[in-house]
């Protein structure tokens, strides 16, 4: 809360001609929208980012930030935030449409997920944990009942079979959860945010190029090794990219505001 207020104060002090009417998140959001309408995309983007840095999460906020970044000429970062908006709301039509627009413009690389992977991605991660543990207990309780209570001992075979079925289902849930976490979950993916990114054959400056990665391209992070990141590239390719050229789709980094923002550090009194 305090962080949010501080950020809001910083934003309020960053200009003398356009300030938010209040310091709540909705006011800052609307103020950022006004900046966008006036064509000051840089200011709009920094305002959206300040809300995100304050811990506010919203698909609309992410969508607006993506759109604003594109107007700034940062197509890679725009794609990243549009992806994040769709992670929060997979049916956000504006984000889908703008993604399609960027797809036609920059021809970035994307993984062709099959239906099964899309289905798994759509399931909240807690489902596998809850489902798996509940099924384990149901299986164990069914088997225990078949031995413990006379009423259940009459149909002991059926109860044991039911218990084994529950345990098997629990194993399947566990493996599906593992697969989702390691392959399908958004935490595994990153977006190329710079314009001149290339995947190299080795984590050394002079190594050969595997493929050029247009901004907005999607990669699967396999290993982060300091300034280099080893990634899985659409098209069954692998290569090393500079760590600063990619950013994970999820979770959000600690600070999303670029360091070179021109926001005053000293609080300034604001005249209404």
């Amino acid at each position, binding site marked *: 809360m305090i962080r949010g207020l501080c950020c809001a104060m910083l934003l309020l002090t960053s200009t003398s001609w356009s300030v938010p009417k209040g310091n709540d*998140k*909705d006011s800052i*959001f*609307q103020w950022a*929208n006004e900046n*966008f309408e006036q064509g000051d995309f840089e200011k709009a983007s920094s305002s959206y980012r300040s809300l995100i840095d304050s811990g*506010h*999460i*919203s*698909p*609309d*906020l992410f*969508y*607006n930030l993506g*759109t*604003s970044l*594109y*107007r700034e000429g940062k197509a890679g970062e725009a794609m990243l935030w549009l992806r994040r908006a769709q992670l*929060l*709301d997979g049916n956000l039509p*504006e984000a889908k*449409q*703008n993604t*399609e*627009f*960027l*797809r*036609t*413009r920059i021809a970035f690389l994307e993984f062709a997920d099959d239906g099964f992977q899309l289905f798994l991605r759509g399931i*909240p*991660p*807690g489902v596998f*944990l*809850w489902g798996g*543990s*509940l099924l384990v*207990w149901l299986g*164990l*309780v069914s088997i*225990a*009942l078949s*031995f*413990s*209570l006379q009423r259940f001992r009459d149909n002991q075979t059926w109860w044991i079979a039911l218990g084994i079925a529950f345990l098997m289902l629990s194993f399947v849930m566990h493996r599906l959860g593992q697969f989702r976490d390691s392959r399908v979950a958004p935490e595994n993916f990153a977006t190329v945010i710079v314009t001149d990114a290339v995947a190299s054959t080795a984590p050394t400056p002079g190594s050969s190029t595997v493929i050029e990665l247009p901004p907005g391209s999607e990669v699967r992070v396999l290993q982060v090794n300091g300034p280099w990141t080893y990634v899985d590239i659409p098209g069954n390719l692998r290569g090393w990219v500079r760590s600063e050229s990619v950013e994970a789709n999820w*979770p959000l980094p600690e600070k999303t505001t670029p360091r070179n923002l021109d926001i005053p550090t000293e609080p300034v009194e604001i005249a209404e």
Partner: protein
Amino acid sequence: MALPKPPLLFLLTVLAILPITRPEARAQQPFQPTVSVTALSNRVAIGEIGVVMFKINGGDAQMPSKIAVEGLEVAFTGKESRVNMSQGVNTIQTIYSYRFRGNEPGTFTIPEIDILVGRTTVRSKALEVIIYERDESEAMDATRPIFGKLEMPKAEFYVNELLPFTVTGYVRGRNSLRDISHVKFEHENFVMKSFRNVRTEGGEIGNTYYSSAILPSTLFALQPGSFRLGPADIGIRVLDSGSGFGFSSFFSRTMIKDVATNTVNVTVKPLPNGAPLSYTGGVGKFKLAAVPSITKISVGDPISMKFVVTGTGNMQTMEAPRFSVAQTDIWKTYDASKKLEDEMDSDGYSEGAVEFSQVIIPEAKVDTIPPFELSYFDPSEEKYVTLKTDPIPIEVSADTAGTQSVMMERPESGSSPQNFPSSASKPTASYNDMLHIRTANPRWIATLDTKKKGVLFYLVQSVFSIAFFTLLGFGAVRWWKERELRATADGPRFRDLIKTIPGPGTTRREFYQSVSDALAAWKDEHPEAPDNILQVIDRVGEKCDAILYSGAGQPNAPLSRDEASEFRSILQKLPQK
């Protein structure tokens, strides 16, 4: 008196000759090994395998694994020994086989070589072999059971011209050719497509039926000049005539035979000078179509041009079309990408298609996308042909609006009026710009940390674990109680009773009473025991009763050791639960 002289002379002569003609004297001379060199055939076609044999009499020899002959590969393949008996003397003959193969025509000499046989060195004679070119007319040779043939439709063609050809394997007999295991056909000046299709046929060659497998492919030359193509090596899987136990179709075995085809001499002509600037490497006969991704844009917005080239010929060497006239400072162009899928490539007979995509950006306000040109060389006409697209009208402005893509195809010669579709087509979306931001108040999400387990998760786990362990404990207590109840209701068990039977020295009453109780328990525990065992039990029980209750059995007398062991042995033979 002169008579004795002739016999003396004769004897002296005989004595003088004897040491020379005695067989013992001949046998003592050391045996001299010999070597002879022969070839199965001194005339072998290029690429085919010939065999040369070194026959050595007199034992094993040390032979080289390879014999160096310039232009000829000669390599050792194996040896075979046999013992010959001649005039009572055994000699060992060993045949060392070498295979040779030549890739150039000419006469080659396998040189004399020194061979160490035992401790003696012998020298073989030089052997001449001829490597000749088997041309297409000689390839169909009905005297050979298996052979291959390389066929080219023409012997003169241009650089980059796509030439279809076939490699065919022939095997004598119906259904004698099973399949083709491999084909090796390479030349550094030619790019050849891999053999993907096999067509099997059959027919008579010189009154003999042959099964054949035809492998079509294409090639094109990289440089002009005269070249000899082939021989191609074919691995043919044939029916092994020695297998099958007389049931050829069911138990038959196959084996792979390697054969070399004939060679073909070809002349590759250079492309004529004077190629247009828009010539990008295509040789054949083609058509060109161009499609812009959008036709209403702003200055600086990219248009993705899609070019589709269809036709017969070499599409692998072809590059993308270019502007007819240079568009410096009007249109910015990026490198085109090419998409040529194997299934869509021309095979020299049927038409193929190749796609090029190129991003172009208007840097000024223009009305049309200028014409693109693509030139190719037509080998049948022996001239360059230039294809040109029509100018494509576009609207370049600050405001953008959705429009449909336009497909235009221009035939090779002349122009035809545009055909419009007779019925309305469904409009498709165009993504010309980003949507505006969302201006309504956003939907804020409290948290997304769905992976965190939370108190509820642990609470549910606790409830289930308590329920499970309670049930387990309940079940365990129940089981223990049931076990005790069962033991009480059933009375003493046979297993326990035989342990309490007293030993020798106690009274007979005490002993027989215990035995009787044990037998009764056994009978209770085994209600369905076999009759013969029950009879034994009854007899032993009657004996116990007689001692205990008849009054004549001296029940108070001490039990003897023999008596105790006799009954104990009977009881121990009874099965226990």
